[in-house]
């Protein structure tokens, strides 16, 4: 069955692109149902920082080879330390996406034992993909403190 038949709340934003806005406790159920109904390819898990709203948007994206349709399952969680349940039991690659979002946005995924360092190394600062992390200011504060080498 196609996503729009399974979930009446699904919106078709463009041909072949479906968006489902939902709550965080329903995500597991929706992914499972889609997986059992021909949406067998988990494309990716994205995180968007809506800093003005104080929310992180997690977008679980799936594709059906059968229906040629891409589904984006979107949930919003609070920016200040709200955690999310891990979905790694449904698709193994979700583990890596969660590991990255944990490192880059600081979202905690309960049930994922592998949230160790991924791309960064020994990073004590704010997770860098958050909108309030100012790259230019960080560079100035961090690297400009290193004294210049002067000629004797």
């Amino acid at each position, binding site marked *: 069955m196609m996503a729009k038949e399974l979930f009446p709340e699904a919106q078709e*934003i*463009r041909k*072949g*692109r479906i*968006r489902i806005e939902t709550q965080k406790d329903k995500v597991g159920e929706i992914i499972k149902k889609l997986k059992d109904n021909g949406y*067998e*390819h*988990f*494309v*990716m898990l*994205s*995180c*968007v*920082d*809506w800093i003005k709203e104080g929310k992180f948007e997690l*977008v679980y*994206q799936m594709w059906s*080879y059968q229906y*040629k349709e*891409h589904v*984006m399952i979107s949930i919003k969680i609070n920016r200040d330390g709200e955690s999310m349940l891990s979905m790694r039991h449904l*698709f*193994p*690659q979700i*583990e*890596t996406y969660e590991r990255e979002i944990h490192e880059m946005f600081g979202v905690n995924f309960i049930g994922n034992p592998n949230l160790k360092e*991924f*791309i*960064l*190394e020994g990073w004590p600062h704010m997770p*860098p*993909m958050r*909108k309030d992390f100012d*790259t230019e200011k960080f560079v100035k504060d961090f690297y400009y403190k290193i004294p210049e080498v002067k000629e004797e």
Partner: protein
Amino acid sequence: MTIQKEFELFIGPNHPGATGNMSYHIWVEGDKVKKAETRVGYLHRGFEKLMEKRIWMQNVPLVCRICVPEPDVNEAAYSMAVEDLMGWEIPERAKYIRTIILEMARIGAHLLTVGGIAASLGIYTAAQWGVGDRDYLLDVFEEITGARVYHIYIWPGGVRWDLPKNAKELITKVLDYLESRLPLYDDLIMNNKVFVRRAADVGVVPKDKAVEWGVTGPNLRAAGYEYDIRKLEPYAAYDKIDFEVPYYPKLGEYEVLSEGSDIYTRTAIRMLEIQQSIKIIRQALKDMPEGDVILKHPQWFAWKVPAGYAYTHVESSKGEFGYFVVSDGGKKPVRVHVRGPSYTHGINVLETIAPGLNIADFAPTAISLDVCPPDIER
């Protein structure tokens, strides 16, 4: 004296078996791999973060830098996402030009990979040939776009400028040359007993798990699935072009020597795709209509992209390359998330299939999955 049974080894970041600046940390017992971990972070440049700071057009020269062997897929997918949000339909001629550029890039990337796979099994000549033959394609790219590696040629709304007058002759000459070279590659690699014995039924991705694990592209087709985004959701001019998608067990002139989904089949699929790409370019050159190549849109610095979500994907030489773009209606994107095919191939898939491999088979397995670290780090 106690005997240490287990050893830790580092493959990369500077190793012929590691494709680019990444490394694998492996644990071996005797010559068997017990466990593998992919380590990235050696070339992180924060492209996605930078994109949020730049206006839509400024991101075009940035995205191509995500992949060196095949930069054009990034330009295409990003441009398609912007066009999607803007509601633009690009001129017909631009679609054909995009097809030609993308297929030339695919041939170049496949030559590097096939050469790399062969080199990891000791056939170093193939790697030299691959790099050398790709260079002729780069010469053509230079004539068309002005640059060899990063072309910045596919723009939102079409392509930057029309093909030069002699483009057809230039491209045809290189295609003729490459076609004459392919039988030599077959003699050197595909018909080579050493290669067949080392590559057949080695580094197998379980066929029943391939889709679930997020395997895409030639690696998925080697596992027996006829899935290709060029056919499933045609972009550019692929819907008007007649071409075949090679997949296991339809290996054309190559013998089916294994159960599929192994190094041998992955290499055969890539060799067959080079032939198909040549066919596609020839047809596109023949059928290409005259006309505009780029939309007459407002000044680039004034673009405001309507708010919304877009996901566009293209079939790269490595698999599904996707761009998830979010706009709030402003001059800059809110978020651009790149889905590189190597994200799943290089981490989950490789870490899962590595245990049990002979240590000498690890590098060929990794390279036959065609892992490109910037897909992971962006």
